[in-house]
């Protein structure tokens, strides 16, 4: 599977050597997450100075196989935390939160149980909502039929 001879000078930094290196233990950007840990052995041609790696079909698939489970687990954990914060701050039920966010009934439950991985837009929106939950609730009331939630929150 070796695509680059050991000892190739790095084209990117001009200082290091690009050779197959085990990326286990490193942290990589993956999909739309900044930091996903590489939790298994995966050998990728990588510069020992700048850290740039060269990917081909095989190495990219090998990286995906290692990173995808960690990505799904971390995304689920982070979303569960965000949903929990929103429910707690707004003092509403899961059903209320589904109405607030325009989600199908039961969807929040599936997210909280880790049965679904949320789309990035939802994950980031709930994170934004948690920055100022009451402000978010009032803003959403302008466009969503959630007057009862607003009344409850301000009562």
């Amino acid at each position: 599977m070796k695509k680059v001879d050991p000892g190739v000078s790095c084209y990117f930094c001009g200082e290091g050597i690009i050779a197959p290196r085990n990326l286990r233990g490193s942290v990589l950007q993956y999909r739309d997450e900044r930091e996903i840990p590489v939790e298994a052995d995966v050998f990728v041609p990588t510069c020992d100075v700048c850290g740039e790696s060269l990917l081909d079909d095989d190495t990219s698939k090998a990286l995906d196989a290692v990173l995808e489970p960690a990505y799904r687990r971390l995304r689920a954990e982070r979303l569960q935390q965000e949903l929990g914060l929103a429910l707690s701050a707004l003092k509403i039920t899961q059903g209320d939160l589904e109405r607030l966010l325009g989600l199908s009934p039961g969807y929040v439950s599936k997210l909280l149980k880790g049965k679904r991985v949320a789309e990035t837009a939802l994950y980031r929106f709930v994170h934004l909502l948690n920055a100022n939950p009451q402000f978010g609730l009032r803003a959403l009331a302008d466009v969503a039929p959630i007057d009862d939630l607003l009344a409850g929150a301000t009562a």
Partner: protein
Amino acid sequence: MKQSAGPQHPLAEVRACLADSRRVTVARSTAAEMIAAHFGWDYGGSVAFAKEVVRGLAEENFFRRTLMRDGTPADEYGVVREGISWYVKLFITGSPARLLIVSCHLPQWDIPTPAGIVTCTQRGLRKP
């Protein structure tokens, strides 16, 4: 503006490399991860996309010649693909020849090409 010479690596040779997956590599941080961040794709999808963008390059997309930090000559391109502007840097090296797609990401500045100006503001191709 001074007219630069054409590509140092003919697109015919680039396409010959693309025809054999063992002769193509894609830089992780300056190509695959930037595509991944834009679309939310995994590395496999991002590497395949980078190759598709390069496969679709034409002479009219050429921007200028450049050098890698180690002195390796490379070519830069700008192209609009499905309404999205892309900056591409690549070179061919070794024997047998191997293509390295150094960069494939949204441009940070407007890129003048014979086809027009590839806008970094994602407004498509602007005719000069």
